[in-house]
């Protein structure tokens, strides 16, 4: 992974998120492409958080374009990046199931964080409503992340803490 590729990937996701994502909209639920890429890069690549940091800018721009308040998504991305780095230390990165678990947990924590922050800013959306949609968000994000994973796993190099690292 290089910064150039990461910028291109996030820019592509940014444009898709704002325009064509509605094509796969099911009852208002769409995958969060930026979040998926942030998790995938942080999970797959050694020091991936350095490249995933571009996702913070991407999330900030998304907030500027469509969000009610600017910056919440970016803070959420930082939390997810930190969480993914911590989780990766105790998980086998070669296992696809680990990736699915990290994506599901990441989606849930991100949306929970978003709700908490919005609640602090007097948003009346109930937690039950947020939780009700979580399985759909998780399923969508896992599906999208997994497609990305299959493409990007070929580009990933062995991590120093992987099994059989040489």
């Amino acid at each position, binding site marked *: 992974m290089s910064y150039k590729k990461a910028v291109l990937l996030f820019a592509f996701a940014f*444009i898709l998120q*704002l*325009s*064509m994502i*509605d*094509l796969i*909209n099911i*009852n*208002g*639920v*769409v995958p*969060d492409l930026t979040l998926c890429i942030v998790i995938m890069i942080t999970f797959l690549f050694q020091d991936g958080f350095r490249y995933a940091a571009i996702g*913070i800018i991407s999330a*900030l*721009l*998304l*907030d*500027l*374009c*469509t*969000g*009610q*308040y*600017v*910056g*919440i*998504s*970016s*803070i959420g991305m*930082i939390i997810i990046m*930190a969480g993914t780095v911590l989780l990766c230390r105790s998980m086998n990165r070669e296992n696809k199931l680990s990736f699915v678990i990290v994506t599901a947990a990441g989606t849930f924590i991100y949306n929970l964080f*978003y709700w908490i*922050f*919005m609640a602090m*800013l007097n*948003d*009346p*959306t*109930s937690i039950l*409503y947020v939780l009700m949609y979580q399985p759909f968000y998780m399923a969508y994000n896992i599906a999208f992340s997994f497609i990305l994973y299959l493409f990007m796993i070929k580009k990933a190099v062995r991590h120093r803490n992987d099994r059989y690292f040489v």
Partner: protein
Amino acid sequence: MKWIRQHKIFSVTAGIVIALCLFVLGSYLAGGGSGVLGRGVQSVVSAIEKPLSAFTGGAGDTFRGIFRFSSVLEENEKLKEENAMLRQENIDLSMKRDELDRLGELSKAFDFEPYSGQGKAVAARIISLNNSNTYDVFTIDAGSSKGIEKNDIVVDGEGLIGKVKETGGNWAKVVSVLNENNSISFKVQRKTSITGIVAGDGKGKITGYLMDNKATIVKGDVLVTSGIGIYPEGIRIGKVTSVDYNDDMQLKEITVKSTVKFTSLQKVAVFK
């Protein structure tokens, strides 16, 4: 300083988080707008979004057409029935038109000038949706260059969608009726003396209360804008789905389902 140098990544991250928190706070204090920077970004992005959104709309319709052929046939039958009913309704309405004209003359006599609908209308396409609550706030591809201003009314054929919150050259942000901060004064179409206030509940529905607790409102009643506030009189808001009396607040509360199908919303009209 030494500690910061030793914990470079942590320090940079903490700095970014603090800066972002200040962004959120600033945005909150500004009433939820994205500011000058946001308008600049939005102008650039909307230029790219516009053709892609147009393509998405077309491609989406094609996909839906392929996979929902049976439901389209069913819908077609329903539409035929509805069409026949509307024809009949049209005949009834034209009979009532003469009566309405006479009442219009009468209203002039009392120096009452109802909303004339002479305002300029601009058609626009939805180009992006909010991340959190999808149809709470969304962006359309027409802005101040077409004369759209803050608080202009956004509608479609089904009824009231919301109002313009913010505008740029070729885009505008719309706050829908589903937004909890968008309060609307209403009256019941069946009996216009029954009035109240509704706003979004943050869960895709609209809730509100009646001004008069003794007023009789029932499930299925159609609510229209009362003309108080920025919304002109007579725009359909939605249908009442439940009526409850709140003992604590001593208010008759209602839940309303918007007449607008937000999940399939693509084009809107903006009225000045």
